[in-house]
């Protein structure tokens, strides 16, 4: 089967590719060398391109994604736009112009990626230009690294961008619906990329080939392909399946599709789950969130993934599906060992269910070397219900302190039934410091990790003291 792709408005057949060929490598081989490889793991954004995705209004959303993390075959039939498709030296795009005249580029190597990330934000339909500002959300560029400028001129360029002009040549294309993922089979170099039409067919493949590597956004699998040279023989795409990309509310449950990209989830929740809202901005970068999914973050079973602590605090349950039916397991039982889970090889993580109503008091704290777009040394999520000054329900999810994400069961038990006072919090903080089995590594020492656990609770209490006491600022 041929893989075709529309790049900057021109449809190209991709030849000589394998299931492991990334969009970035192919673009560069095609002579579109504006997109660069800076890290090959979605940290620097030099490879950013615009992916056209079907918008909720029937048109097209331009989303910035890391070209290094997208298997080309996964984009069969879809449309991308690269930096070359935005403007030329003789006719700069407004984003390009704003960066160029303000000293936004020095060596220029990261610049195409910044242009792309900024262009995605420039066209974001929800961005509102008012007298108070242009609505440019700087998190659009938090996944782009620049080693030369110190970022100030890039920020300034972002903040002067107006709304797209009526004559903007991209606007007509944004009115048309973008093509979505298409059923695909590509076999080359001893490996196969497969995207089946339906969930049933996908599950059938999974039952037949238990070694298949399930691919949603690709932000984790592709890192293994790029950096560790993993060459999974079967990549099975699930990102297009409606059963995996829904969002459903019932009076007692919120069900989140396992393959719903986090940016979509954030937009569609629009603040209704405050704990998730506190978490989204601290999870990688927008470039990653535009592809990454809860299913992927849970399925990989990493002890330092940031969604498990949050979902543990939300008492979430994991919905696993296979040809033999569906089962639901509590997330707290899902992780069985280092990068091991309860998921059987023939099962897919179909959804995550969060019980309602939510515990009213919640918070997420991430300790890392860098404020944004870093991997946690420690991540702690709290969800408490305090009634009449007494803790009636406590859930604390932890990441980075054991071989798996875990709940702080001892601390939870010590809190439940107790008054929500500074003394109780302090006693609980000491217990929390001793939960898990933190290790020394290049991110942090074990002692620091332990200290951060206790301090997370001290801070959480400080920010949410018992009614009647004042929060120190």
């Amino acid at each position, binding site marked *: 089967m041929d893989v075709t792709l529309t790049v900057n408005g021109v449809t190209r057949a991709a030849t000589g590719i394998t299931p492991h060929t990334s969009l970035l490598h192919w673009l560069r081989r095609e002579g579109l060398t504006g997109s660069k490889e800076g890290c090959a793991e979605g940290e620097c954004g030099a490879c950013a391109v615009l992916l056209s995705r079907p918008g909720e209004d029937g048109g097209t959303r331009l989303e910035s994604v890391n070209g290094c993390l997208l298997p080309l075959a996964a984009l069969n039939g879809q449309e991308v736009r690269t930096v070359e498709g935005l403007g030329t030296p003789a006719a*700069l795009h407004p984003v390009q112009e704003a960066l160029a005249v303000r*000293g936004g580029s020095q060596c220029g*190597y990261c610049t*195409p990626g910044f242009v792309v990330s900024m262009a995605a934000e420039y066209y974001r339909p929800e961005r509102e230009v008012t007298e108070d500002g242009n609505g440019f959300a700087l998190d659009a560029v938090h996944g*782009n*690294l620049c*080693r030369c400028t110190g970022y100030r001129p890039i920020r300034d360029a972002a903040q002067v961008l107006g709304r797209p002009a009526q004559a903007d040549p991209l606007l007509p294309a944004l009115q048309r619906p973008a093509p979505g993922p298409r059923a695909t089979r590509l076999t080359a170099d001893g490996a196969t990329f497969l995207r089946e039409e339906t969930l049933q067919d996908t599950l059938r493949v999974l039952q037949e080939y238990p070694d298949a590597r399930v691919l949603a956004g690709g932000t984790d699998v592709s890192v293994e392909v790029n950096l560790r040279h993993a060459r999974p023989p079967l990549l099975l795409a699930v990102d297009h399946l409606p059963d995996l990309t829904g969002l459903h509310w019932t009076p007692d449950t919120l069900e989140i599709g396992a393959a719903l990209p986090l940016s979509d989830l954030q937009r569609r929740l629009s603040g209704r789950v405050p704990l998730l809202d506190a978490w989204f901005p601290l999870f990688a970068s927008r470039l990653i969130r535009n592809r990454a999914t809860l299913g992927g973050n849970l399925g990989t079973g990493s002890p330092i993934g940031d969604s498990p602590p949050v979902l543990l605090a939300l008492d979430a349950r994991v919905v696993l599906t296979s040809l033999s039916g569906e089962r639901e397991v509590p997330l707290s039982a899902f992780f069985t060992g280092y990068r091991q889970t309860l998921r059987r090889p023939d099962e897919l993580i179909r959804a995550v269910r969060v019980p309602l109503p939510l515990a009213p008091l919640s918070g997420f704290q991430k300790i890392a*070397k860098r404020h944004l777009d870093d991997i946690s040394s420690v991540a702690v999520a709290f969800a408490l219900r305090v009634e009449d000054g007494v803790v009636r329900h406590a859930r604390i999810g932890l990441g980075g302190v054991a071989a798996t994400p875990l709940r702080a069961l001892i601390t939870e038990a010590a809190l439940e039934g107790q008054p929500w006072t500074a003394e109780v919090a302090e006693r609980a903080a000491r217990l929390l410091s001793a939960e898990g089995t933190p290790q020394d590594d290049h991110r942090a020492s074990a002692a620091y990790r332990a*200290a951060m656990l206790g301090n997370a609770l001290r801070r959480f209490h400080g920010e949410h003291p018992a009614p009647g006491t004042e929060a120190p600022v």
Partner: protein
Amino acid sequence: MTLHERPTASVVGEAVPHESAALHVTGAALYTDDLGVRLHNLLHAWPLQAPHAHARVVRLDPGPALAVPGVVRVLTAADVPGVNDAGVKHDEPLFPDLVQFHGQALCWVLADSEEAARRGAAAVLVEYEVLEAVLTLREAAERESFQGARPTVSRGDVQVGLDGSAHVFSGEFEFGGQEHFYLETNAALAHIDESGQVFVQSSTQHPTETQEIVAHVLGLPSHAVTVQCLRMGGGFGGKEMQPHGFAAVAALGASLTGRPVRLRLNRTQDLTMTGKRHPYLARWTAGFDEQAHFVALRAEVYSDGGYSLDLSEAVMARTLCHIENAYFIPHVQVRGSVCRTHKTSQTAFRGFGGPQGMLIVEDLLSRCVPLLAARGVHVTPEEIRARNFYVDGQTTPYGQPVKDADRLQTIWETLLTRSGYAERREEVRAFNAAHGSRRRGLAITPVKFGISFNFTSYNQAGALVHVYKDGSVLINHGGTEMGQGLHTKMLQVAATALGVPMSAVRLAPTRTDKVPNTSATAASSGADLNGGAVRDACLQIRSRLAAVAAGRLSVHPDDVRFEAGRVFRLGHPDTAIDFAALVHHAYMERTQLWAAGFYRTPGLHWDREAMRGEPFKYFAYGASVSEVEVDGYSGAYTLRRVDILHDVGDSLSPLIDLGQIEGGFVQGAGWLTLEDLRWDTSDGPGRGRLATSSASTYKLPSFSEMPEVFRVDLLERATETGVVYGSKAVGEPPVMLAISVREALRDAVAAFAPAGTAGEVRLASPATPEAVYWALDAARRGTGTPDAVAGEPPAAVSGP
């Protein structure tokens, strides 16, 4: 006109964007690895990296690699027709039989695709005899595992000075290095061109040396090898020495196979194979008088040079020449030793040892402030600094007069005022009194940085300028463009010198067959040196044109003016003729319309054995004020505001210089607060491996580390006589302005101490949130010294 004087209507001084800005933002700017797609029959190179820090290669059999489909050849030592070495000290074998660091390349596989080359490298059979490895700086210093010279800078009699000091303190400070993390990794592309020469495109700051290494590996004279550097995606010193071997591998492959060879390191290869900023260890004893004046400084300074010398001796020399930063110290004795460890060979990095020297003294001063207070000598960190500033007439410990020392005081006082330092000190005090878990800190630090290569011979440059018959101008010079805006400045210099608009001038890529025997684009000297050479070439042409114009305008050649593409009689712009028309006439009169320019920095001398002389043409000065806020729960912090006043002379290109200052500052802040190189020092199988070998484990400053408020001013009326158009170098000095961030963190940490218990605050470097946390934890407990600095983290952890 003298070198520093500017004609009226000069193009230098205009705030123009980077000459390639429009190419950068459209993706049209080409870098070395973008060129491969244009070549047919390209081969891809992939290294076999050793999995040990120190081992003998007992056997290396490339046979199985050749059986991998697509593999064409495996390059080994046996293939080298010339010298099997990639360095200038002959201690860096290109194809080694002794592994000296984890990840060292032993051989290179060439294949039709990168994938095939990688599989081929994995198939090569190697047997190792694993040897004992020395990894830490401390261990190397204790074992006296040194390499190269161990120079001492001295003045006066340090023992007499210490004996005569009212207050003497000792301390130790070990701090980390830094990965360059240019966004473009090392890359080379080689082919044998239609004339039979070896043509290498290389991402290199030092094309001439790349050319020389390629030639000596291939056993060819230099004239048979041409190296071109279009532009680099960042260099920062990391491409001064490191690219040579990669270029040589590509060139060797091309010459053996007859096919073009592409070599591009991926990020992990670049991190694990190339050198970094040197980590340091310093042990010092400092003496002060009753007024907190420095009397004496004795120090032993050790750098971690890695497995080979590279530029480590020169880096150490610059450390010793900057250890006193902006301060006059009567009695000095500082010895530097380069340690040999089984790590990548550490190399040049923006500042080149200067930052390390300055960091030692700045750390020392701040640590001594509370120690002096305990002895009844009360000075603030800013007072002890200003009190010790050089004044005019004083000389450095190595004997160089400190030219324009008064600028230090001027900058300091102006910045204190402009930043509202005194009022903000009160605001910080008030904030800290009112907040339970957060503390703010404020600090000001100075920079005095010597400009010129310590290695005197490098202070020369060449240029080649052509004026074509239509009046268009093409310039070539020996400097390379890595984002610093050198080419932009050179276009401005040429336009100024010839009196034409910038649009009339084009700049051609840096190539060794146009301008030979160039120095590295390094030491911040690119614009000083190449600007001098470009100006020289342009003035030669202009004086020939003036002679032609004098005839047509009936004036003396001295009275011909060149401005904005018009040529006229002094005082009579109405007589103007077009530059292009004049050029045409000049050609018809058989006038030479091109010239080679040359510049050598006058007045330099340096005795590297005695460590005495005047190695620098001048000093660049600056100061910065930083304000931080530290979270007491985690040690995390934000950089609230930065104010900088910096001396670039009369700026050649203000937008470029502003970018250098801001970018250098943030890069320096990254070194001091965030960027954390960790090696596996366990006895496990990964011993010696760089644990932070990817972008996900080695974190650069991102948007979240940018100062919330960032105000940078250039010192006004700052003409530097003796430098092209009165300017000063700007590439490196701003890195060290970031020391104020670290001192502001120390100030905030001290504010966690219970009232009356503030003592010496020791802060690890980089001051990561964890390091700041242990420091503030110690301050809270009133011990001053975080146990974690000494190795073991505290057993008991207390809350805020």
